[in-house]
């Protein structure tokens, strides 16, 4: 078998084995796996509403996946997508409530999106600067920044911006809401899928071009693969480290915009639910390639929403186990596959 076939077979095989293990866990919980999977399939991809839900989740996952994948091009491990997402989400909600209601949507929405992206980017930038200036390991820096982001958003929400006796902020003004597909084209009615999905696909394509077809990407990947040679070649590796982290953070910020501006319309405590960490799995499964990320995010999107739909039969905890096991299996198999190649 040549290595190209193998490269495609390994993710497939890992997904199948994950399904098998998932079935086993379901069976152990006393349910018929086939029935559960059938229900899941129907609820996710069988109805327009389900498809919309999956698309909505996939969109966020693509963006947090990119948040991990972009820094990975310079061999940096961004564990901080969650924190960047939090900062982006809070900023989006704040901008959304503060912008005057008279501003046309065509101005207000981009402003909100940009503010979310800027917040995510700044948060990731911190880790990049720490790395370049002081040599702080980016894994540690981003993990710590996650805690700090949690602290900041938690404090600001509870003590300053939460509507009394709730855990969320005020609603954003109507002109900053990203319209859902349902309201524009009538697709996926009532589901949270919104127009930021289109933007996200565009962003993924943009990064594809940036990585593999631009001089910027050429320099950036070289700086990641062989930092010392990059210096000899006159490439500013530090600049690329900082840029890659910031771009990653900006992607996470866009993911936050999808949730806040497209769906919830306010910032709520715990709304990101650790999806930033799933981004790591999304990026790893896709080998940090922007196009494969679309696919791997879709897979995790199905899994996420599918898990919710079968709540009545399978306890949430069991499904959490299945999801985590799946990620673990997929990552182990891809690592194993790389050794085979």
């Amino acid at each position, binding site marked *: 078998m040549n290595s190209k076939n193998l490269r495609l077979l390994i993710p497939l095989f890992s997904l199948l084995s994950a399904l098998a293990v998932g079935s086993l866990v379901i069976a152990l919980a006393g349910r018929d796996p086939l029935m559960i999977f059938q229900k899941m399939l129907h609820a996710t991809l069988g109805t327009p509403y389900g498809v919309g839900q999956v698309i909505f989740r996939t969109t966020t996952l693509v963006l947090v996946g990119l948040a991990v994948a972009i820094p990975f091009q310079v061999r940096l491990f961004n564990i901080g997508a969650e924190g960047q997402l939090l900062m982006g989400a809070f900023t989006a909600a704040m901008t959304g409530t503060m912008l005057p209601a008279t501003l046309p949507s065509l101005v207000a929405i981009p402003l909100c999106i940009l503010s979310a992206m800027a917040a995510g980017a700044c948060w990731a930038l911190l880790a990049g600067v720490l790395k370049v200036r002081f040599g702080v390991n980016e894994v540690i820096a981003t993990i710590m920044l996650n805690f700090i982001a949690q602290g900041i958003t938690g404090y600001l929400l509870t003590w300053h911006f939460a509507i009394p006796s709730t855990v969320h902020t005020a609603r954003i003004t109507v002109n900053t809401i990203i319209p859902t597909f349902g309201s524009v084209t009538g697709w996926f009615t009532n589901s949270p899928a919104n127009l930021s999905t289109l933007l996200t696909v565009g962003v993924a394509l943009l990064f594809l071009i940036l990585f593999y077809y631009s001089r910027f990407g050429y320099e950036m990947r070289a700086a990641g*693969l062989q930092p010392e040679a990059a210096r000899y070649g006159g490439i500013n590796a530090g600049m690329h480290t900082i840029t890659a982290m910031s771009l990653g953070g900006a992607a996470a910020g866009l993911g936050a915009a999808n949730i806040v501006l497209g769906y919830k319309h306010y910032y709520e405590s715990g709304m990101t639910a650790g999806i930033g960490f799933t981004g790591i799995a999304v990026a790893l499964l896709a080998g940090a390639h922007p196009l494969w990320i679309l696919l791997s995010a879709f897979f995790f999107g199905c899994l996420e929403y599918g898990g919710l739909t079968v709540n009545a039969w399978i306890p949430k905890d069991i499904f959490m186990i299945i999801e985590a096991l799946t990620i673990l299996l997929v990552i182990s198999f891809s690592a194993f596959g790389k050794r085979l190649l």
Partner: protein
Amino acid sequence: MGVAVRLSGVSKKFGSFAANSNISLSVEKGTIHALVGENGAGKSTLTKIIYGIHLPTSGEMVIQGKTVHFTSPREAIKAGIGMVHQHFMLVPELSVVENIILGHEQTSLFGPLSLKNTKALILKDAEAYGLALDPDALVASLSIGEQQRVEILKLLFRQADIMIFDEPTAVLTPSETERLFATLRSLRDKGKTIILITHKLDEVLAVADAVSVMRNGEIVGTVPAASVTKPELARMMVGRSVLLRVTNPPASPGETILNIKRLRFRTPQGEERLHDLTLNVRAGEIYGIAGVEGNGQSELLQALWGLAPVGSVISGEATLKGHSLIGKKPAEIALMGVSHTPENRLRHAVVLEYTIAENLLFGRHREPAFHKGIGFNSRTIKSYTEAMISDFDIRCSSPERQPLSALSGGNQQKVVLARELNRPGISLLILAQPARGVDIGAIETIHKKIIEARKSGMAILLVSSELEEIIALSTRIGCLYKGSIRHEFSQEEVALKREAEHEFEKEIGLHIT
């Protein structure tokens, strides 16, 4: 004397590629048997078969009279085979003795190590073979030559009778090489069988008893070392006659291009590595810097290419046509018309994962001629790549798909030289160790290209630890010792003395040690 290793009809295929085909070889007990060949000729595959890393696809192997089928190095070790790898397999944090017994502790997992007895054994071996070492020293504190001695002691401790040395002199200084050869001879005299893999023909002739030459995965001949000459061996290796020394027509240097005056370099640790270094390089000449490594070569190169580590202090002058090079960044220096091939090709000059075409662009990717939109102009790059490949005889199958790591060392170096020699508008070329890790056939091409560049009027600064190379190429030679030019040979002297190469090497040797 019997036969220590006999291979008959051994082949090894990787997919459809035959790395070794139909190898028959017998290595006499108690001899030094050299295995020579260009990079990619199949030497390392063959040794990996003998050492049990690869299982041959077909053929038979007999060790000390017994037919064997090794499935792992462990079995080979048991059969009395040991190997000193090119990159040492030592744990730097452990002491010499701990490294030597590693994997052969001969005690239970939690039992005490019998370090004392072992130490005595090691000291005895060390004395017998001239491998003086402090058994308690940390491996990290040892020089490369000493680390190699640890590897040899390791084999002796395991009572290996057949010892494979993979390019053992690649990392050694000339005196360390002499010392290693003395050890090899005494090992042989005590009945050990030594298989020496190398591509340096002088060494083969100096130390080996028999030589097998490999080419394209086959053994093209085995001859007694005493009955063969260097040009004959080279011809066997490459398959055609090779010029071991390029013709170097007289140079007529022009104006001074690079002017270095009283250059000092202090490292961040406070060591003075360059001490009032003064030299100049004129257009159309090659200024060779001869010297044992570690006498300031790296620091000179760092200073000239804008890569001095943060915290180092540089004083004095280094000017290119009157403009200072000190304190500038590599990209700015390149723009001034300087080109540089670094000492350590793999670490500094290429990105192994990038394709050949991408590597031909590396460092030159800022040149507008290659640009189109935000990316690269694939058509320009294609024609440039093709031109370089044919001009420098780079052996590859598909430059746009093959990663550089798929090429042999010589061809990788050709990629680097092709790229650096063809930068537009260069007046100064800084070449560091251009022939390191490169086989004979490729050296010929590389040296020819360097002479051509000189003829076209470039000023060339050549830094090399190979005296042979310095003598063959240089117009003038500066002997670098402890950070300054201790002696300089003028153009007339070099031209005259080049004829008596060995004498000249000795004379230079006096100035650099």
